[in-house]
């Protein structure tokens, strides 16, 4: 073993070894990030490949299940039809999303302000929520006719419950010491609401909105299954009855893609709005 006697030389060697370690670390991080992006793509590619293989090897007839190539061709060839049918579904889902969540936020606020309201009407809300969507749809079609209204109502109803529950929790699960602080500061009830309860509920609201973004689309599609001529839901029913499996799959893919896009938009808004870490993560 040789000891390094020159202190200047020792310092440079140490600096060098730190730099090498840093570079290796950064390289490792880069590789990790790349892996994170590539692996999901590989997963999806495997699924599609397996699907193509099954259809080819088992010689599945087209009216039972299409090959992925056929679905891709249909997506391109009938892109116009798919988009004209996506439009009403998107309008219904987004309107229902806005309406249902707005109602949930307002009612949650009322519940938190008046406990007796919550005690009286929360069981009603739970009761309505227990009715399956497919059962709600015909009731609403009878009530609201054949236009977009029943679909919007179904999308709104489906969004309503998770948001209500989360919002009530967010408004109520305030740090008790923060409430005492508001009292020491002689804050009014509305000041406590706007300065403490509402901001406290925002992260809870967003986790509900992310669920609602995908369920609203499901609500609109299920609504279109009953007596509708346009929309993703109607297209699903039509292509099923026509044994047009490629069109069916293409329609489902378009509906899912819209759902994912909706979800990602809400996630993006969340990232812009919620810049703090919830207190309970400390």
């Amino acid at each position, binding site marked *: 073993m040789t000891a390094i006697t020159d202190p200047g030389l020792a310092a440079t060697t140490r600096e060098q070894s730190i730099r090498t370690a840093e570079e290796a670390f950064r390289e490792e991080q880069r590789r990790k990030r790349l892996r994170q992006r590539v692996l999901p793509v590989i997963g999806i590619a495997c699924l599609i490949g397996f699907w193509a293989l099954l259809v080819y090897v088992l010689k599945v007839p087209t009216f039972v299940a299409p090959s992925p190539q056929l679905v891709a061709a249909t997506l391109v060839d009938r892109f116009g039809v798919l988009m004209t049918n996506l439009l009403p579904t998107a309008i219904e889902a987004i309107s229902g999303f806005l309406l249902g969540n707005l109602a949930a936020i307002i009612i949650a606020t009322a519940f938190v302000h008046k406990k007796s309201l919550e005690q009286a009407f929360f069981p009603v809300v739970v009761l309505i929520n227990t009715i399956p969507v497919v059962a709600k749809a015909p009731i609403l079609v009878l009530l609201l006719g054949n236009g977009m209204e029943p679909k919007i109502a179904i999308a709104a109803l489906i969004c309503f419950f998770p948001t209500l529950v989360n919002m009530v929790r967010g408004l109520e699960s305030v740090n008790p010491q923060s409430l005492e602080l508001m*009292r020491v500061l002689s804050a009014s009830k509305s000041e406590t609401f706007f300065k403490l309860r509402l901001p406290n509920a925002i992260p809870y609201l967003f986790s509900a909105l992310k669920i609602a973004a995908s369920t609203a689309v499901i609500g609109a599609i299920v609504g279109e299954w009953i007596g509708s001529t346009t929309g993703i839901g109607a297209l699903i029913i039509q292509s099923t009855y026509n044994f047009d499996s490629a069109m069916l799959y293409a329609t489902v893919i378009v509906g899912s893609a819209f759902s994912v896009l909706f979800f990602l938009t809400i996630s993006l808004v969340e990232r812009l709005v919620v*810049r703090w870490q919830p207190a309970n993560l400390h």
Partner: protein
Amino acid sequence: MHAPAVDCRGVSVRFLSERRTVTALEDVSFSVEPGGFTSLLGPSGCGKSTLLRVVADLIPPSEGQMTVLGLSPEEARKARALGFVFQDAALLPWRTALQNVELPLEVGGRREMPQGAATPRELLALVGLAGWENSYPHELSGGMRQRVAIARALLGGPRLLLMDEPFGALDEITRDRLNEELRRIWAETGATILFVTHSVYEAVFLADQVLVLSANPGRVAALEAIDLPRDRDLSVRDTPAFVAIAARLRAQLGKGTH
């Protein structure tokens, strides 16, 4: 007339529940001189935090009379004569340090700063957080969060500062430093401080008067004037005088426990 900052006469607090009635405080009497620093020392569950909350008008006394700065606790609270520092800093996580200190200006109908009072920025500098104004609570250490809470409590120049085990969750090194700084802040602001703690060392080092409470129910076990130099630093804890006082208080605390 030289009115005491806090005058507590025969205060009892009982909490009712379906199963039993808990007497948190029984017949507690003491008073705090204006500008004084009093520690409330006692084992957990002795009602020291409850006593602080009676002073702050957060809990009404079941019996007895509480006078704060010559007013009722409610009047004192509405006049913004008190600042309260909680056990956990109770900062709003969506607000920066500066915005947290500014909160008292946005609620309770008090948008104006009293003449000559320190600004939020000056208060952050006073607690040693100049340069951290725009940091969010999750970006600050536990000690720094508690400093922000102290700055917030000092906004508007309250004449009485109530502190409920503010350094209880901090490590010893941070706690020691904040103890020294609190002595300095006390000297600079001239506020009366009522400080709840279960640490004998902290109680003796900080205060000029220690009120010892015994548990079940909370009663005054002793009221001890701390005869240590006013200008003290942490080394005072190694002096014979300090050790003697601490030993005496610990003996008092021991009496109350079963």
